[in-house]
């Protein structure tokens, strides 16, 4: 660590308090602790104004680890089944929320499918009484069009809603079942929900999130904070158009993988940077036959 920038104990203590209050693990049984990486990231920022902003925003950060997925999915499905928009049906189809370009890829929505078979899920009347059909891809649905009573499209996170809209466009071209479609997500940005609602499709999420700066601070203060965040992203060499997260979503969320809608300071690594705390680096990739 010699020669590297070191974080002052004032910030280490502040970050420690946040980790404790959120019950995040401080030290994993491996060499690259999220806490240590977070400290390194804060240390490399240019000034305390930037550090203060990141610390302040981190107070509102949501980290949904894999062990929390089932609980969140149960909550989201409960919201759907209790909603007056839900039309009871004996034939429920569950399908990953995937755009055509991602068919066959290992995406988070595929991981969600397996959880739909869980023991806890079967405690819901809908899963006890009806016929539940879990589909690997939206492409299968055409063959089942006549039997589908309700179609639930699931994913772990909805950011800008672009992916969902792409998937809906595909389904619209494939078959006619707009009124039977529901989208369920563990976490969703309010902006994404609004964009999907414009397509007249209801969205049910365990947790909904506002834009972390625009929707939280008064206009003038928000502008100042956005400028600081853009400076941080530029300094960290974040890709163009991603300075406030993909599609300016301003998310403060990490799931099993961190969505690119989250501010890059939390996940972006470049050869000139140290470790990002909630990294989504290209060195871990899925290869397909």
């Amino acid at each position: 660590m010699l020669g590297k920038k070191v974080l002052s104990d004032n910030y280490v203590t502040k970050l420690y308090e946040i980790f404790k209050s959120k019950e995040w693990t401080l030290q994993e049984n491996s060499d690259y602790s999220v806490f240590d990486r977070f400290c390194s990231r804060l240390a490399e920022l240019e000034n305390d104004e930037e550090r203060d902003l990141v610390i302040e925003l981190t107070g509102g950060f949501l980290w949904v680890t894999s062990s929390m997925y089932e609980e969140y999915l149960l909550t989201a499905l409960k919201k759907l089944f209790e909603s007056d928009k839900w039309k009871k049906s004996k034939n429920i189809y569950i399908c990953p929320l995937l755009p055509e370009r991602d068919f066959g890829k290992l995406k988070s929505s595929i991981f969600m499918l397996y959880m739909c078979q869980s023991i806890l899920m079967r405690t819901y009347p809908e899963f006890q009484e009806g016929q539940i059909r879990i589909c690997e891809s939206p492409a299968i649905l055409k063959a089942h069009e006549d039997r589908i009573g309700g179609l639930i499209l699931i994913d772990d996170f909805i950011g800008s809603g672009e992916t969902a809209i792409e998937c809906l466009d595909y389904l619209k071209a494939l078959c006619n079942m707009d009124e039977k479609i529901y989208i369920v997500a563990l976490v969703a940005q309010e902006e994404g929900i609004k964009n999907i609602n414009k397509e007249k499709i209801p969205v049910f999420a365990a947790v909904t999130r506002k834009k972390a700066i625009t929707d939280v601070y008064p206009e003038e203060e928000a502008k100042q904070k956005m400028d600081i965040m853009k400076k941080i992203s530029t300094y960290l060499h974040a890709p163009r158009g991603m300075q406030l997260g993909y599609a300016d979503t301003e998310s403060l969320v990490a799931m099993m993988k961190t969505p690119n809608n989250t501010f890059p300071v939390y996940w972006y690594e470049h050869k000139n940077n140290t470790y990002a705390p909630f990294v989504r680096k290209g060195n871990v990739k899925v290869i397909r036959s």
Partner: protein
Amino acid sequence: MKESTEFLILDTIKKHSSLVPLFSAGYSYAKIIEWVRQLEEEKKICFDNMEKRTLTDIGLGRWKVIKKKKSGFTILPLNDYKISPIRVDEIYLP
């Protein structure tokens, strides 16, 4: 916590009122802050008026105790390396 670790932290805070020397030396942020929190709970470390960490009376007392012990430490060679003294008549002079 090992006594040597406790001394390292108390000694650093006594000298620098800061943990930065430990971070600069390459110790993990997570480990150091957890140890420090443990010492704070044991009322050995507190914050002064300037919001800097400092030793409490208990902490200073503990620092003195370990320091005293430390000066009495002797480093002995391992038994395998002990060599019995050689008498003058055992030395061969051609």
